[in-house]
């Protein structure tokens, strides 16, 4: 009954569904590691998806669209930075408002394009690696954005642990006063965190409008931004676990779609609920605090001027 022909496509779909979540999770993780809690991921992601669609539609070049998705979401990130760093606003409130703003903007500006198709990224067999049995079928018959996402957790880890800037950024998230006592500028680090974190979130959005589908629809993200926020906590702010979490959710999404397609007798709304139910369960289990799983110590705490 359960054969390779059934399993491999489901796992391949898992990778595909997990990829936008992975981008968004790593983006939010970067922002949070610098000490800024940004609950606007959902809004940034959909605004990025719209930016990607728009620029690909008008230029015909999905790479331009991809870059602009990062810029669109990154600019929203900077807006969050403006509220929190310049006006000392509450990070939770600002992030929630950012979600509403991002979703609203994408809906409003995107209305004329609903259902309009565009070019985008298409799957191709990765040379050599795609011919590996099983592995090749699961991981190496995707589009360029998926391949790019494989390198991201490694780059993320290397940046945070093996570069000067990563260390400074982590210090800004853990203890801004110590960071500034060391002669660094924690505020600048946080600006970088909100922008580049937002940029990555935007790439996740771009995946939805340029690779997952090749068109624009409203509510394209469907809560994936929120899942990313939960996954950062689930991953204990570590990129390796983020990969696991993203694919876990991707798997659930792919699985429930497959079940629907197979005509399962369960009501479809129940199946659609699965990823979100899993989010709650994951958060329940991972919020039990333990060694090495702590959030950045200064997460969500603004740096007051003069400190």
């Amino acid at each position, binding site marked *: 009954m359960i054969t390779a022909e059934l399993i491999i496509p489901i796992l391949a779909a898992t990778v595909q569904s997990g990829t936008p979540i992975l981008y968004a999770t790593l983006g939010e993780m970067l922002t949070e590691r610098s000490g800024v809690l940004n609950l606007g991921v959902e809004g940034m992601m959909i605004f990025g998806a719209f930016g990607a669609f728009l620029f690909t539609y008008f230029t015909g070049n999905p790479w331009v669209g991809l870059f602009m998705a990062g810029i669109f979401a990154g600019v929203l990130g900077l807006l969050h930075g403006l509220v929190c760093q310049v006006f000392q606003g509450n990070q939770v409130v600002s992030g929630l408002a950012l979600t509403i703003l991002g979703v609203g903007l994408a809906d409003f500006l995107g209305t004329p394009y609903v259902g309009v198709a565009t070019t985008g990224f298409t799957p191709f067999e990765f040379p050599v690696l795609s011919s590996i049995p099983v592995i090749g079928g699961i991981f190496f018959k995707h589009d360029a954005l998926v391949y790019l996402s494989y390198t991201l957790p490694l780059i993320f880890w290397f940046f945070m642990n*093996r*570069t*000067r*800037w990563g*260390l*400074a950024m*982590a*210090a800004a998230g*853990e*203890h801004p*006063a*110590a*960071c*500034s*006592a*060391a*002669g*660094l500028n924690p505020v600048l680090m946080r600006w970088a965190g909100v922008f580049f974190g937002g940029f990555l979130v935007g790439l996740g959005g771009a995946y939805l409008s340029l690779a997952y589908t090749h068109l624009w629809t409203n509510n394209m993200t469907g809560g994936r931004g929120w899942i990313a926020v939960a996954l950062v906590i689930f991953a204990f702010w570590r990129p390796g676990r983020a990969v696991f979490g993203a694919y876990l959710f991707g798997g659930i999404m792919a699985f429930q779609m497959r079940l629907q397609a197979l005509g399962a007798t369960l009501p479809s709304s129940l199946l659609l609920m699965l990823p979100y139910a899993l989010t709650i369960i994951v958060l329940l289990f991972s919020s039990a605090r333990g060694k090495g799983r*702590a959030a*950045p*110590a200064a997460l969500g705490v603004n740096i007051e001027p003069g400190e």
Partner: protein
Amino acid sequence: MSERDIINNRTNRNAFVHLPPLVRLEHICKVFGKVRANNDITLDIRPGMIKALLGENGAGKSTLMSILSGRFMQTSGTIYVDGTATRFDSPRDAINAGIGMVYQHFMLVESMTVAQNVLLGQEKGFIISPKAMEAEVTKLAERYGLPIDPSARVSELSMGEKQRVEILKLLYRDSRVLILDEPTAVLTPTETEQLFEAMWRMADQGKSIVFISHKLKEVLAVADEIAILRRGEIVDEFHESDVPNETVLANRMVGRDVVLAIEAEPVKPGSVVLDIANLSGDGMESLSLTLRKGEVIAIAGVAGNGQKELVEVVCGLRKPVSGRVEILGLDWNKFYPRPPRKGKSLAYIPEDRQGLATCKYLDLVDNFLLTTRHSFTSGPFLNRKEAAETTVKIIDEFNVQPGHIEGTARSLSGGNLQKLVIGREFFRQPDIIVAENPTQGLDISATEEVWQRLLEARNRAGILLITSELNEALQLADYIAVMYRGRFMDVFHKSDAAKVESIGLMMAGVTAA
């Protein structure tokens, strides 16, 4: 403080004596609002020397060092580094000039390793190698005798080890002047010894060390030069070889000279309000005292000799381990944890007025209600209008400036905040008042007002005054108890001139002959 005596066997403590001072502070003044935290301070910091700044809390030691380390800008005066006048706009400027400070609250990233903390902001190259970083820290640690595991996470270290990391941070940045702010407060006796040895080793290699403390023994043991600060001024400076003895130091530190005098007509003593017999434990050793209505008993002594523990027991913050404590005729266990709401009450005026006494972000009415809310309730409801009206009255009566009840507590200066706290506590018509360093950090006029209020309160209450200012004790008290290492050295009436004369000795632990 360590029970063992620490022996300073540095042999070459004058190796660098021919060199000019690294840093010279000249006529430094620092004014916060109306309070002069530092007044005309001139101080030389020399290479290879350990300079101790000795003084009570609030004497201005930390302010002075914050100026030197670039955290505050002096109101007037000049800092010379290597003979050149220098301006520090930020700690970064001071670090670049080779001056670094180890704060009481460590500035460490807990989740990072020792090596990452030491090298933060000083890494060589964009890509960093943990191995190379750790090797560098090990080398540095060995050179100065500060053993540490460079790959350990800071969150796993003891307080003493964390302090070593802070010192290593400064050494890595080639700091020539290291300022240690009350470094032994967080250390065990063994760690204290290790710290002193490291300090001597650093001094031997030509570093200047400024050591801030209010512990006489340590200062005598470790320092080459001692400067005593009181009320923002340097009142004395000795070279290590000229140090007379602990008694003189203690006397100079707390000050016998009368800055301010007040008429204290004795009040006829009434009933006993506080009766303590053989209270021991938590560092206290068989303390006994009896306080009557109309009396002021002052507990004098250098801070950290058990005064805090005594206050906490009397005010219900700490359970007495052994001995009897009777408050207003009720046993401690009856009086606490729910003191009677009406009638009998005890008022506490804590030393920490911005933390324990008030909430800095609440407005004055809310702060007023913190301890008086029982007077403004009807059933489960709070009558805020009445409370606000009463707050206005208290503000007028006690001359709190600026007296806007919508303002937050943090908008008040120390003196005005203290007046608000006193007004609030007096409103409760207390039978006992526990006042802990009530005039610390206040200017002369505010001090006088506070003293006046306390003396007036004798008509209805007995007052337990904890003070590290000898003059305050002499001005206000009827009886003086001198505390040293958890014991009362003696309790005597202030008219006993011979005993008053020997308070300094008693504070240093010498029993009066």
